[in-house]
């Protein structure tokens, strides 16, 4: 089983994803340079955070045209698990692999601190190991994380349980104060119609060890391993 981590110019959480996979799972991921056109046999694709192309124009707008994205698109279309974190989420939205868009935070400021998230659906390759409505503590670090989409899209996401993570308070309630960026309905992460592509703004890869404050993010990576194992089990 192989994690592939895409590196765009300006990605800066690629190292953190790599470290999470190594130290959290004991796996050695493969780094996928954006100018490549192959996923080098990766079974799970991670689009890390950062500022691809300096976030110029719009966050993720330019990265989506990278050669590697053709391969990612094909991989996603074939049902392969793809996770976009922060800038990776923005890229997936720009590439229309996920619905909606991420605009400047309410209040315009970059915000970095811990947030509480509620797992809204465990039916994705990246949340299967969490409990239903489990509360996680993960860091955020973004300036453009306000999730928006038109009303029909939002309704559809809610109806199909495609909202995967929601910002909540410690007690698990959605409140204005617990929503760090003004996202509609406190949406922190969504998935594609086929549920194999997931994007979220918070950083699970930074929450792998209690030494740094939280190990709640590890489940995202463990879920991917488990999902893949069960797929392979079905296949064999």
């Amino acid at each position, binding site marked *: 089983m192989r994690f592939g981590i895409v590196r765009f110019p300006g990605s800066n959480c690629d190292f953190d994803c790599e470290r999470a996979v190594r130290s959290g799972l004991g796996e050695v991921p493969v780094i996928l340079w954006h100018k490549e056109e192959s996923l080098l046999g990766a079974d799970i694709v991670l689009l890390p955070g950062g500022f691809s192309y300096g976030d110029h*124009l719009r966050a993720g707008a330019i990265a989506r*045209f990278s050669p590697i994205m053709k391969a990612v698109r094909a991989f996603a279309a074939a049902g392969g698990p793809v996770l976009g974190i922060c800038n990776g989420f923005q890229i997936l939205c720009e590439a229309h692999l996920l619905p909606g*868009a991420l605009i*400047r935070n309410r209040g315009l400021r970059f915000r970095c601190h811990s947030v509480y998230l509620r797992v809204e659906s465990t039916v994705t390759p990246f949340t299967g190991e969490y409990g239903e409505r489990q509360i996680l503590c993960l860091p955020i670090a973004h300036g453009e994380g*306000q999730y928006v989409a*038109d009303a029909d899209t939002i309704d559809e996401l809610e109806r199909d349980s495609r909202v995967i993570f929601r910002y909540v308070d410690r007690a698990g309630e959605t409140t204005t104060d617990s929503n760090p960026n*003004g996202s509609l309905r406190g949406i922190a992460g969504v998935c594609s119609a086929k549920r194999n592509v997931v994007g979220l703004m918070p950083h699970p890869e930074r929450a792998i060890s209690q030494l740094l404050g939280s190990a709640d993010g590890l489940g995202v990576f463990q879920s991917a391993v488990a999902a893949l194992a069960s797929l392979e089990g079905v296949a064999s």
Partner: protein
Amino acid sequence: MIRPRPGILNPEGQTIERALRDLGYAGIEGVRVGRTIGLRIEAADLTNCEQLVREACERLLANPVIEDFEFHVSEVSNPPLVAG
């Protein structure tokens, strides 16, 4: 010129509106912030140039989920001049 679509939140505009009000400018509303992109493009003729620019806007420069665009092209000596 690329502007937030009507109905899409515009946090930049909201913040400016509030700041203007704090500075004592009453009666200002509906502030919306967009982007302008100016560039020079080499093309056979104006029609061709317009087509190029429209395509660039659709593919890259604007995000149709949240933005509308409009542009105008004017010929400069050579190469022609475009303001998007």
